[in-house]
């Protein structure tokens, strides 16, 4: 692979409002190579990829594709030169069909005028079959699961055999089976000479896929090394700039709390049609309970029912001793519930509002005598400042600059801060580290465990088993809307838990292992 590189960057620099975000970056991607790109949030990865993908024009430096100068003025031009950029956010038209989404800008033509729908349909069906996607090309995108939508974005990217495909956090919504199918596809395409730049926070995936790994930190390219020369620990040290003892804070386990006190959460036979079926669960004070399950197992749905955002049809929900089954979300917050949702931008934050306004929102009642009584703004601001400092939030102006100017990790800290201000009895964290860099991940978990030590019950939903194994006292597994298994810390075994999520009974673990291996092999 010493021939002409597929893509070469020479001294790329870029700045926003005078703030450098890419400093003098030089990088090569060989034909048929997977280059992993990692770094904390705000390190400049997305900016660099946007430059390569034609979204941004660099202030300085130049690029070459297969040895020819390359200076795209638009994404369309980048596409025409063989660069496909699959963004982290979905860019789909939810009211249109899969075919329309795939071909919207480049429908195949017949006689140069008429769109050739039959060919479009055939090509789409072929592409879907490659990834074993079980939906028809005429499905309306709205009806697809988040995982399938993400796969569709990838399908769009691979169409027309581009020479270089940029994948930016492609697996956040995928089930492990879909992830394996994606990895198999990447392998097939690289064998045919396609290059990839794979951007992700999931370091194991990056290690598994990449030939070489590039690490960015503080707008600069720190190092590029062969995958084999970069163990995860060193990768993290390079990304964070300081050694991090472990990904997760120590969890010695909790001592069973005062049995007199009501548990933080008690679910008794809770059902919500089509979402959750007969869930019974207790979270003690000071206990960290993890919920594991595959995409669509009903974990988020259960959390939303507990928070009062979706109605329970039957059963009883108690938060810190209060029966909240029929209460509004607001009354449940007053009873001690806090809910960090998985959708940070859509449900967690007011993106145009500053940190203080965001952090104060659920706890405003604490700072005034009533809805129309004056807010004690000074003490509120002081408290927000104290909490955000404890979370090591990096923001210069808490009262003026909007939270959308913050990095993903810092935004998540704001969401956490707003719930800490309510001093909750029960803290529900739904995928709290999705799209969050390692440093901030550590802070999020450290803070949650500190709350647990102070007596708050923690309910963590995560698709990443190692994360739950690292911090939970107990893991319950959900499948098809039901709680199917429960394991105390002493019985933690990744294979058994994974098997339960795939629907194997404990006595079938041996068989389950075989099945999950088969699934991992991508059939």
């Amino acid at each position, binding site marked *: 692979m010493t021939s002409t590189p597929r893509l070469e960057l020479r001294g790329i620099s870029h700045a926003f409002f*005078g703030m450098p975000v890419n400093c003098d970056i030089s990088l090569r991607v060989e034909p048929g190579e997977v280059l992993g790109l990692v770094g904390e949030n705000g390190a*400049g990865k997305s900016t660099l990829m946007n430059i390569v993908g034609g979204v941004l024009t660099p202030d300085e430096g130049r690029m070459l594709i297969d040895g020819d100068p390359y200076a795209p003025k638009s994404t369309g031009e980048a596409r025409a030169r063989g660069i496909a950029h699959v963004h982290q956010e979905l860019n789909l038209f939810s009211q249109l069909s899969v075919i329309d989404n795939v071909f919207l800008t480049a429908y195949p033509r017949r006689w140069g005028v008429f769109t050739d729908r039959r060919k479009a349909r055939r090509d789409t069906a072929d592409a879907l079959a490659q990834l074993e996607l079980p939906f028809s090309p005429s499905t309306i995108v709205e009806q697809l699961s988040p995982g399938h939508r993400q796969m569709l974005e990838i399908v769009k990217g691979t169409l027309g055999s581009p020479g270089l495909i940029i994948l930016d956090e492609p697996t956040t919504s995928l089930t492990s089976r879909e992830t394996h199918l994606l990895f198999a596809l990447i392998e097939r395409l690289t064998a045919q000479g396609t290059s990839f730049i794979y951007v992700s926070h999931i370091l194991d995936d990056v290690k598994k896929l990449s030939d070489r790994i590039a690490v960015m930190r503080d707008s600069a390219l720190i190092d590029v090394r062969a995958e084999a020369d970069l163990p995860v620990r060193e990768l993290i040290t390079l990304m964070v700039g300081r050694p991090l003892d472990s990904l997760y804070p120590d969890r010695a386990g909790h001592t069973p709390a005062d049995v007199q006190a009501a548990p933080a959460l008690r679910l008794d036979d809770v059902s919500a049609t089509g979402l959750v079926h007969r869930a019974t669960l207790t979270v003690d004070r000071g206990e960290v309970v993890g919920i594991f399950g595959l995409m669509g197992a009903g974990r988020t749905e259960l959390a939303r029912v507990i928070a009062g955002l979706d109605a329970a049809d039957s059963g009883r929900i108690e938060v810190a001793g209060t029966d909240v089954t029929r209460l509004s979300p607001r009354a449940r917050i007053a009873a001690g519930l806090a809910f960090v949702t998985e959708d940070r931008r859509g*449900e967690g934050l007011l*993106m145009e509002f500053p940190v203080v306004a965001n952090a104060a929102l659920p706890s405003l009642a604490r700072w005034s005598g*009533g*809805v129309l009584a004056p*807010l004690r703004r000074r003490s509120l601001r002081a408290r927000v400042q104290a909490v955000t400092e404890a979370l090591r939030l990096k923001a210069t102006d808490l009262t003026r600059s*909007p939270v*959308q100017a913050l990095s993903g990790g810092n935004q998540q800290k704001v969401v956490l801060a707003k719930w800490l201000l309510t001093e909750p009895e029960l803290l529900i964290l739904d995928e709290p580290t999705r799209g969050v860099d390692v440093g901030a991940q550590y802070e999020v978990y450290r803070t949650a465990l500190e709350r647990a030590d102070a007596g708050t019950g923690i309910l963590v939903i995560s698709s990443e088993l190692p994360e739950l194994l690292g911090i939970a006292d107990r893991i319950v597994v959900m499948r098809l809307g039901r709680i199917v298994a429960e394991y105390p810390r002493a019985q933690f075994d990744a294979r058994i838990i994974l098997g339960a999520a795939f629907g194997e009974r404990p006595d079938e673990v041996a068989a389950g292992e075989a099945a999950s291996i088969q699934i991992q092999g991508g059939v």
Partner: protein
Amino acid sequence: MSTTQKTAPPAAAPESARRVDGLHRFLAGEGFVLALIVVYVLAVSPFANGLLTERNAVNVLSNLWPLAIIVIGQSFVLILGGIDLSQTAVISVANTFGALFIAQTFAPALFSDTVFWGSVIGEEGGALSDAGLGGTVLAIVLTVAAGCLIGLLNGCAVAVLRMPPFMVTLGTMLLFGAVAIWMTRSENVTSLPPEYLAIGSTQGGGVASFLTLSMGVAVVVAIGAHYVLSRTTYGAWLYAAGTNRRTAVVSGVPHTRMVISAYVISAGLAALGSVLYSSRLGAGRPTLGDDMLLDVIGAAIIGGISLFGGKGSVLGAFLGALFFVILSNSLNLMNLPFHVVWVVKGLVIVAAALLDVGRNRLIGGRR
């Protein structure tokens, strides 16, 4: 990480970024409206005869107070991300309804066929016509209550039935506009008592002709609304609900109650504004609100209250109302034909909507 980087200047922005930021804030803020007013007055004063005289100033102000109250009411709904088109119908219905109670006499030839004849009204006047000051106060309370009731209807339809605000209030606008006409068979209700006429009276002479009761009402409303929006939990909830409904609900904002209360406030303040208008007019007029929709919405948008929700202030609403009153007044003074006046007003509304889009793109909202 994604797009967060390109959206805004992070920590310690350099001087150039800060200057751009300052410009954004000015364009979005009340200073811009004030500057617009000053520039406009200077620009048209040579052509509009008597624009800068004391008598005209009294006139402009007496038009400002009721409009400001109504625009402030509209702001509550706009901040929530809705729109209240029915304010004009509320103005028509409420002022006529209130006036019926306190009119001193009704001509049987005009009113004997109306629905209230023999119950609320008769040849000797309305039901409260003999009750003096107390009767007038009660009539005003009834006026505002009638408005609030219509607001309650709007609010419930939007919040509980989840209907689009535009359709709901368009419907109630037509419906209650017709009710206003039906109540008096389109007749004005005249012969109102002196206590009522005193509200909008500018007969004091000198400084006293500026310091009207209307002004007192408007100033109290403005200060109260400013306090509620900027200093209380209610205000914080309103902005949050108007910015991102889902985040607001997850964070415990009682969304349904916010929506209903905003529409009640909007209609209630429209009714209160209509009292000031009809007092100055000396009559309850069932077509009073007919041409006012553009003035109200236009003033709100010019004042920086975004049609997209989540943005706006009482001071902005007030200055927006002032701009529109001066605009109308100056166009009248220039003796322009009716259709030209409407062309200019229409253009100003379009410009205001453009300004709103531009502002949203400049400040924060680079979506």
